[in-house]
């Protein structure tokens, strides 16, 4: 299908909206009526047609506006994009991975023409048509990682692999859920997850690291993570907490359906071939509660998940204070009927809301 790109903002007047199409393909993260933390990795090898899992790098109606928001964040704070000197090769790897993937997966939007080291890249939505020399940084306006991630939705952590560990040595991070590249740059896997509060959690981290060290070329992996954000704000960075933290106090029973968003990260992991580094794209999808409940199964289930979530998790995810208000709202959409297993909306088979 051809994508109708939205003209919208993720700040100030927040004109961000999801179309009917975007709502139905939203990556709803709960496959049952309760939630338990787990690493839940699976192969990133396509998915149902039209779903956000289908392509290697999903492009949707928010593409152009998200890229405009990224450019604004970078103009205000250039340190959101950093790459240590030994990571340039990984940057070229990433540029190649994205250009090849997007031109194959979206031939009507992106084209890549390669003639030896001379590459021509056409990005129609953003109006870019550049010819450059692969592996020659001087032929691009930015370093290779910055160049391509200014044109790709989602944050990117590029991790060097050495000493049986992963090192956060490059990244483009402008839409993060409360972490800072500038703080984490150069840290290894355990350092950037610190402080790890409980000893038994250490086992989870060790297993996750072992899994990631073994992600191989040609076999990318993915998982989902989620949190809650007030207003469709992409840049919920610690640097800007003073700006967005306060928005949590502006929620009212009248505006909660419109302002409270479920924020889902589609995290993928690819081994980069030339550098043997690992890239970790973190793609953020936002949906307002009032849009989410138009899918009856999701309305029922989200109510139950949020209601039964342990206190520590609601605190960790930053919505403990607003939980009663969110539950009041969601309870209107939970009529107690059972839900079908799995994450899909099942609009044709799930019963409508009984009032």
């Amino acid at each position, binding site marked *: 299908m051809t994508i109708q790109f939205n003209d919208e903002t993720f700040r100030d007047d927040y004109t961000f909206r999801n179309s009917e199409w975007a709502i139905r393909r939203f990556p709803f993260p709960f496959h049952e009526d309760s939630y338990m933390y787990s690493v839940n990795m699976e192969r990133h090898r396509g998915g149902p047609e039209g779903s956000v899992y289908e392509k290697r790098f999903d492009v949707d109606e928010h593409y152009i506006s998200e890229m405009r928001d990224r450019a604004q964040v970078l103009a205000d704070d250039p340190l959101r994009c950093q790459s240590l000197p030994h990571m340039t090769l990984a940057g070229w790897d990433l540029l190649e991975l994205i250009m090849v993937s997007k031109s194959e997966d979206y031939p009507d939007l992106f084209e890549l023409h390669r003639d030896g080291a001379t590459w021509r890249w056409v990005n129609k939505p953003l109006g870019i048509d550049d010819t450059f020399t692969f592996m020659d940084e001087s032929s691009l306006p930015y370093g290779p990682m910055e160049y391509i991630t200014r044109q790709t939705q989602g944050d990117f952590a590029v991790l*060097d692999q050495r000493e049986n560990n992963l090192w956060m040595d490059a990244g483009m991070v402008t839409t993060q859920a409360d972490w800072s590249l500038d703080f984490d740059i150069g840290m290894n896997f355990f350092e950037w997850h610190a402080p790890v509060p409980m000893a038994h959690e250490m086992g989870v981290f060790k297993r996750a690291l072992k899994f990631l060290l073994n992600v191989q070329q*040609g*076999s990318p992996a993915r998982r989902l993570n989620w949190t809650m954000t007030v207003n469709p704000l992409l840049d919920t960075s610690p640097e800007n907490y003073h700006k967005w933290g306060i928005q949590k106090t502006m929620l009212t029973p009248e505006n909660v359906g419109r302002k409270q968003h479920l924020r889902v990260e589609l995290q993928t992991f690819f081994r980069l071939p*030339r550098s043997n580094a690992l890239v970790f794209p973190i793609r953020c999808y936002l949906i307002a509660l009032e849009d989410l409940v138009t899918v009856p199964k999701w309305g029922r289930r989200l109510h139950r998940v949020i209601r039964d979530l342990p206190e520590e998790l609601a605190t960790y995810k930053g919505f403990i204070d607003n939980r009663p208000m969110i539950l009041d709202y969601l309870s209107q959409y939970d009529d107690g009927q059972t839900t079908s297993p799995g994450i899909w909306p099942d609009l044709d088979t799930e019963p409508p809301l009984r009032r």
Partner: protein
Amino acid sequence: MSAGLEKLPVIVTAKVKLNDLVTRFEFAHASGKALPPFSGGAHTVVEMQDGAKTRLNPYSLMSDPMDPTQYAISVRRDAAGRGGSVFLHDKVQVGDKLMLGMPVNLFALDLTARKHLMIAGGIGITPFVAQIKQLQTTGGAFELHYSARSQALASYADDLRAAHPKRVNLYLDDQNQQIPLERLLSGQPPGTHVYVCGPRGMIDWVLATAERLGWPPEAVHSEEFLAPQSGKPFTVDLAQTGKTITVGEHESLLEAMEREGVDAPYLCRGGACGQCETRVIAHDGTLQHNDHWLEDDERDGSKIMPCVSRFEGSRLVLDR
């Protein structure tokens, strides 16, 4: 991460005999597509159909990592081995089709290093050939010290010396030349990483010398693929799949599981990567650990690496 890993169908485009022991095989993608780039030090698992038997042998890629038109491996004929190298030498011809596993790197360059000091013995030269080509493209200081039995058996020494006369040093056993290891490891600038690939004895020598001279362990890299050892046949119960299988004399436990259609993970098939690690549920007998992976305290009967390790005794139950 196992039999489900992506594979590359290739066609043999060249078979070049370098000397009495070593033959190079070159491959192109069977349908003419580009082969994926890789990083210097990566290996591929070559899948050979030898009659009813599927042979899977790992070899270092030694072509230019940036060249998508071909892959190359160099195979040392191991007459005493289990037959994979002999099969390649004697049976595989130009035009034959094979399957290759996607490149996997367990011997990567540390790109934070200021200098790469490479020490090769015999056929252990192959990963360095690809790494040197990588460094030629990306820039990076290196020095190679390569020891071989004789000039005739010093595969690629001439090419390497012609391309990098100041950086490549050759030592021949039949001329009584030896790598001046002690001196080399003492006189390096800070930020140097040392890499060794070759026979077991050489690896031990380099690791021990580096340790004695105070090299930090993270700056010392080695790669050795073990070939699975033959041994007495034994029987294994697989708890998850409910199968009972017998491992033949010249077969590894991993190969026996694959033969029986059990989806068992692997990457290196040589006891180095850890991927095949399997929990031992019960055993009555002796586990023969032949891997480089398990820590000493894990060799307590709780785990086994089926790609290289065996068992002798009356009963073994694995979590597979």
